[in-house]
């Protein structure tokens, strides 16, 4: 649980962040979005005191962040920096073990944690533990970067454009992986991004920032359905909001019972988004699709239900 109130910072008289208040519940992911220079990175760096705020209050799990020494505070907060920032002269295992070693975990415990994390991120420990970062692909480096931040089981993760420098396909795959790991492990995180799609994909709530202030903080769906005037409307992008809303929902939410049968040519799985289902329906010019699990039809989804979900005023 993170509670931020009245956070303010200015650099040489220029206000960077002004009167910030927000809370992040345990297990929640909050995205800070906005254009460059809106103060989102500054906010993130104030949370682990890489930047000292001028005023305001930061409370992490009930403790005032100023009561702890900066180094001790940071060891308890996972930090995924922009541009990965793996140490090139250390192996993957040494990189991931950075914070545990700072916390003086014994060797065996560090090793075990490294192997556990590598496995969690789909990297074979025997193959990757002793490689150097330069021997990894961009996507693998990002995975190791996130694994390193999670190494000492921190209370929360701060992620500054964690998947920024990747090609769209790899980025999408890593976002899915992150969501899957979240579901398994429960991660509390604050994520900075300028990519609205990334925020919609990863965050439970989104804070839209401009000129050092939070203009609106809400769940993705409420942000899409009821953006405040001006910058938020523009930034959220209302042209395809119906489709964006659909991408926030899964097929299983709308599936209706159907007779067991072998899988037809066109189908969706329960974990696909409604957006994918809608796209397939438009392509097929159909009005319903089979929902298939393990090669058998288990349910069906109807076009009218999907359209209703994406419509104005839907619940």
């Amino acid at each position, binding site marked *: 649980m993170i509670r931020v109130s009245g956070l303010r910072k200015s650099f040489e008289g220029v206000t960077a962040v002004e009167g910030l208040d927000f809370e992040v519940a345990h297990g929640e992911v909050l995205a800070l979005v906005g254009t460059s220079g809106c103060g989102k990175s500054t906010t993130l760096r104030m949370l682990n005191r890489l930047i000292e705020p001028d005023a305001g209050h930061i409370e992490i799990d009930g403790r005032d962040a100023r009561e702890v020494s900066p180094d001790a505070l940071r060891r308890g907060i996972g930090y995924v920096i922009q541009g990965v920032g793996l140490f090139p*002269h250390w*192996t993957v295992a040494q990189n991931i073990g950075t914070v545990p070693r*700072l916390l003086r975990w014994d060797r065996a415990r560090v090793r075990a944690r490294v192997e556990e994390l590598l496995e969690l991120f789909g990297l074979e420990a025997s193959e990757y533990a002793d490689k150097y970062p330069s021997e990894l692909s961009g996507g693998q480096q990002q995975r190791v970067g996130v694994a390193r931040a999670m190494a000492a089981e921190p209370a929360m993760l701060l992620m500054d454009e964690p998947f920024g420098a990747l090609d769209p396909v790899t980025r999408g795959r890593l976002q899915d992986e992150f969501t899957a790991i979240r579901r398994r492990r429960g991660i509390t995180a604050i994520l900075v991004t300028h990519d609205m799609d990334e925020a919609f994909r990863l965050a439970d709530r989104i804070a839209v920032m401009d000129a050092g202030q939070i203009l609106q903080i809400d769940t993705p769906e409420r942000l899409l359905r009821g953006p405040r005037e001006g910058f938020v409307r523009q930034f959220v992008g209302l042209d395809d909001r119906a489709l964006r809303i659909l991408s926030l929902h899964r097929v299983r939410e709308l599936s209706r019972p159907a007779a067991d049968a072998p899988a037809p040519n066109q189908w969706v799985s329960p974990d696909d988004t409604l957006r994918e289902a809608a796209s397939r329906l438009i392509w097929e010019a159909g009005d319903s699709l089979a929902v298939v699990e393990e090669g058998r039809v288990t349910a069906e989804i109807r076009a009218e239900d999907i359209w209703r979900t994406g419509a104005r005023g839907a619940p």
Partner: protein
Amino acid sequence: MREASRRAAAVYALPALAGLALLPYLNFRANRIVSGDGVMIWSPEGGAIIAALALSALALGTVWARAQAVRLACALGALAVLLWSVGQGAAALSADAPEFARVSLGGGFWIAAAFLALAAADAVARMSLGAWARISALLLPAAVFAVALRAGLFDALSILREYDTNRDVFDAALGGHLRLVIGSLIPALAIGLPLGWACFAGPRARMVILPALNLLQTTPSIAMFGLLMLPLGALSRAVPALRDWGVGGIGAAPAIVALALYALLPIVANTYAGLAGVPETMRDAGRGMGMSRARLLARVELPLAAPVILTGIRIVVVQNIGLAAVAALIGGGGFGTLVFRGMGQAAMDLVLLGTVPIVAMAILASLLFDVGIELTRRGGAR
């Protein structure tokens, strides 16, 4: 690629052969200071025609060969034949000569030896070996040469005759030279590394330190030795106890101080450049994960800056191995003693006896640092 390496080989092999064809490879002199008569490599009292032919064949082999390993073998073989025929020739020439007669190395030898060594180095470079393989490819022939030297193959040469008569001076000079180089390096590192860090940590410190060191670097070495004699002389008079430690206006102390001062700029500048070259994301990551400043410096910044810092130290060591020769002028010892004594006596062989070890030390130091730099780059810059 092969054409390029062939052209390069020709650039080395042809001058080597031309040098031997046009200039004497040995000089025979009635005594150590008169100029002598040249002896060509194919002359009967010299290495004889067979050696000349073998050498030519091997030198041309470096051009003809396809594999770099064969080129290396040819170049080293030619070098071996050259050295062998020099030893044999000198022995044959001095066998029935009077005691004062001297056989010294001629221009043809120096040119051929230099170009053949270059051909060997070129072949090694083109093999793109790892650091250790590279160093053994160059140290192995050096070891063979050392064994031949110990076995007395070159004893008839004037440079070794000079060594024989100046053995004590030579051994003292070797120790003195090493003391000057190492003795100046340690304080230079102790002062230079923190200064380099200070330059990195604060722009204000940098704006004072770097210009001051630049000024220091431009002071001519002899002037520097002279300038240091006064304060150090005064110091040893004021605190006589220091004299027991060898501190005085002349001797090794001012030389070590001067060499350490010359070493400062490359060490400070490279330490600063190395630390400044560490990407900001590294510091951000380290600090953001809760590393203390000291730990960040020791575990992240210094290891990442190491190749650049070591390059600076390498410059300093090679530079000071050469500069230390001048220390002999103020009684600082080292191989300069032999050089200046030789110049005083117009005995070029004695000058050579002082110069060759300096060059050899510089090359050896340079090679060792190359390996060190490459090893610190591992992981880092790949």
